[in-house]
């Protein structure tokens, strides 16, 4: 009776399995210790002086895209252009003219994080960065 616990072509198969795992894990050990540093968006002087954004920093960090989404619908659909924050302060809901008025360095502020997170919002296909030269 043949020993049926024997693996045929054992050497090739084991070598193959090892090679497979090396290749599949290649991105992990190749990039080990090379993690890109966390981006630190730079606040412009005007933003620093204002101390607080439309809403608290933590909220803006996590939810600014939702806020902007609500802003755009409210402006376009409901024709309301004024935003009142929890402190009663009023802002014009405008990406180019309110957000970028304080955060005037788009490359240092928006783009830094967006590039790190590999997101490419298409805001700027239409909305104008006032500082951008054609």
């Amino acid at each position, binding site marked *: 009776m043949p020993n049926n616990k024997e693996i045929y072509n054992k050497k090739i198969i084991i070598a193959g399995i090892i090679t497979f795992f090396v290749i599949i894990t290649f991105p992990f050990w190749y990039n080990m210790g090379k993690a890109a540093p966390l981006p630190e968006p730079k606040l412009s002087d005007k933003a620093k002086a204002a101390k607080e954004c439309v*809403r608290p920093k*933590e*909220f803006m960090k*996590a*939810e600014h895209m*939702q*806020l902007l989404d*609500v802003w*755009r619908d*409210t402006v*376009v*659909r*409901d*024709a*309301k*252009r*004024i*935003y*009142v*924050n929890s402190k009663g302060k*009023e802002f014009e*809901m405008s990406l*180019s*003219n309110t957000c970028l008025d304080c955060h005037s360095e788009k490359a240092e502020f928006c783009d830094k994080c967006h590039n790190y997170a590999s997101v490419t919002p*298409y805001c700027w*296909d*239409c*909305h*104008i960065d*006032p500082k951008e030269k*054609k």
Partner: protein
Amino acid sequence: MENSRRSFLKIAGISALGLGAKPIFDALAASEGYEGKPTIETARNKNAITAKQWAMVIDTRKFESAEDLEPIIEACHKIHNVPDFMDQGNPKFKDANKRHVIKWIWEEEYKHAFPTKENRFLNDRLKDLPFLVLCNHCEDPACVRVCPTKATFKRKDGIVLMDFHRCIGCRFCMAACPYGSRSFNFRDPRPFIKERNPKFPTRMKGVVEKCNFCAERLAVGEMPACVEVSDGAIVFGDLEDPESEVRELLGENYTIRRKQGLGTGPSVYYIV
């Protein structure tokens, strides 16, 4: 007997696993919920001017030649970042660009603007007079009916507006509009915008655009740009308000509208 003990243990094990998993789900749920979605308080600008149905009356008696219309067209196109594909000074200018031209307000001959009112022997003045044409902001707009994404919609004040964010560029609206008021961005318009107005966005390749009755100006209490530079030749106001200047003009003068028989109810009136 052994069988039932076995199944009892199975069920007990699964139940224990389920109970054990609850704190994990709780933890996940807690990290998700951050202060909730922005419920925000918004308001209109205090100066904003509103109406039940905005309408425009264009007094064509005050225009003599295309030169009179030029500053009006330019004012509109400048503040709305409308590209000029026919600008010969632009390095990308080609004759074929005329297929891509974007128009918000432009001039048209009488016979093209009012094809249903054309006579064989037309009054000499009207025959050669350039007419200003733009989106009619219809009371029953065909473009709104056909838009599959509701990117174009009719506001409560009668303005037929576009949400460029929403437009997928299917061009149904262009096929539906009987006035040719809509233009499609076949290409990136930015290289053809001489001076960008940062107060208003540009458009991107693949969306349709048209006149918006200067909704962004009305929102801050200003009259539309064309009205402002027309020197009184264009009047803008509330059609539903019997005291408005528009109604006054309509009461005093005979006016015509473009392709009225189609039933779209255009809101741009012409005194001829």
